[in-house]
């Protein structure tokens, strides 16, 4: 499954993996701003940006082919725009559209593929994301696969009772009933979780999270990327 691959990548080890998530997020932002504001005629700039991305991919020790293929998933959409722009007589703008979209997607993918969700969430919290949102994402992610498996089992069990009539799956009301049951089990699960929390002394507020430390290497990385992007952008 797709998500399993990216999640596995995020738990790897490399210079890029080891950097603080905030530093990587800042670098991504600088890159995105630079790329999206670069005038289309500065095609060499896009080459320079691509070089930056290639360097980052090398530092991530992740399979290049895999990364490029996943980022390329966005191309069919932006390609439509690009083609239309090309036909309306603006080839450079068209090229820029494609390049911006692909490079941005690749850079964003690199962030996700080298940072486990927990670190991303911790970084977002340091940057001011509301605690309730972070906690809800945490619980959502924790129970996502558990409940999805339940839904999958319910589907299989229902389908194995459908026989010939089951070509189109469950009837409308049967599907609604299945939803109701899944909801009920989910709600009861939440009650169970609450009991388990109380049983281990939950006092009403979640303890604040431990925040990661920022190291000199992180600052250096961010500064370097910022300088590189600014440099390319200004020269363009």
């Amino acid at each position, binding site marked *: 499954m797709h998500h399993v691959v990216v999640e596995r990548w995020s738990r790897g080890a490399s210079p890029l993996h080891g950097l603080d998530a905030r530093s990587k997020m800042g670098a991504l932002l600088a890159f995105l701003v630079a790329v999206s504001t670069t005038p289309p005629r500065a095609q060499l700039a896009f080459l320079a940006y691509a070089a930056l991305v290639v360097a980052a991919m090398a530092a991530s020790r992740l399979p290049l082919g895999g990364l490029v293929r996943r980022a390329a998933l966005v191309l069919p959409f932006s390609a439509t725009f690009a083609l239309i722009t090309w036909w309306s007589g603006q080839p450079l703008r068209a090229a820029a559209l494609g390049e911006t979209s692909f490079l941005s997607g690749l850079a964003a993918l690199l962030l996700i593929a080298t940072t486990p969700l927990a670190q991303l969430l911790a970084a977002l919290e340091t940057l001011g994301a509301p605690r309730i949102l972070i906690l809800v994402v945490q*619980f*959502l992610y924790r129970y996502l696969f558990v409940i999805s498996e339940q839904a999958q089992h319910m589907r299989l069990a229902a389908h194995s009772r459908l026989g010939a009539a089951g070509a189109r799956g469950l009837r409308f009301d049967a599907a*609604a009933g299945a939803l109701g049951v899944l909801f009920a089990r989910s709600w009861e699960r939440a009650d169970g979780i609450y009991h388990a929390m109380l049983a281990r002394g939950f006092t009403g507020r979640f303890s604040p999270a431990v925040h990661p430390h920022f190291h000199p290497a992180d600052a250096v990385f961010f500064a370097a990327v910022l300088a590189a992007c600014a440099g390319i952008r200004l020269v363009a």
Partner: protein
Amino acid sequence: MHIPDGFLSPAVWATLDVLSVPAAGWMAHRAQSDTEDRRIPLMGVMGAFVFAAQMINFPIPLGTSGHLVGGALLAIVLGPAAASVVMTSILAVQALVFQDGGIMALGANVINMAIGGILAAWVPYRLWGARWRSAAIFTSGLLSVLVSASLALAQLALSGMPMPRRLLLVSLGLFAASGVLEGAITLAAVRAIERLNPGWVRTPAKAGSRMAGVVAVAAVLVAAVGILVGSAAPEVLEHLAASFGVTAHVPAWLHAPLADYEWKGLDSAWLRRASAALTGLALIYGACALAGRLLARQRSA
């Protein structure tokens, strides 16, 4: 309805990313203040439930099937602020873990689905849920999809996506069908849930004035669709206006700023379009805020 990366122009997705921060933050603040931390696991589990529920297929005519989107169900079960936080979490996990829906387009998706969609679902239920329950629940599902989809299409149009009239009409038709499906599924789901335990579904307060409700809902809908049409096919609006004999009487100062969807005063083209987008969104927020104030007055009455 999720907008992937590569569809929106940088001006549009960047603006929406910036706008979504205070919007989502405000919803989180509201959720935090009217919820104890004990509800947080429930909210997370409900988010996981919505994900999983999307695997259950509902057969529809034409031999295909649809699934629950979930915004309306969340709003009805958890209330608007908590539902908004849960929806935002769902979108975040979809973008960051599954890369479904763009990472840069996350702000746009949050505004369309976690803010617009949830509020559009809450208003009918809040106003009519006590007396015209089934109709209210159905409308919640319908509006939630219509508003989210219209906002998304408007953003695409603003990003320069070519929008011939036929495509626009087909899109609107598809949105309507999708909305009807969501309304039906949401209604069936709420009924099934209530059969198991009526306590799980929030009861809306006493019915508010029907008129205020109609006005609020209409405002939200008109704003969303209006922006969509205005951004994509301004000539459609002008044509409509002409057929009502209105153009001649529209004052120049009202006509000029919005008609071509650009503020003349600003220089750079993308800045103009971005401010147009901002204005459009401000209209939506204004409509929702108005609805909110009307509701508040009803409550205290």
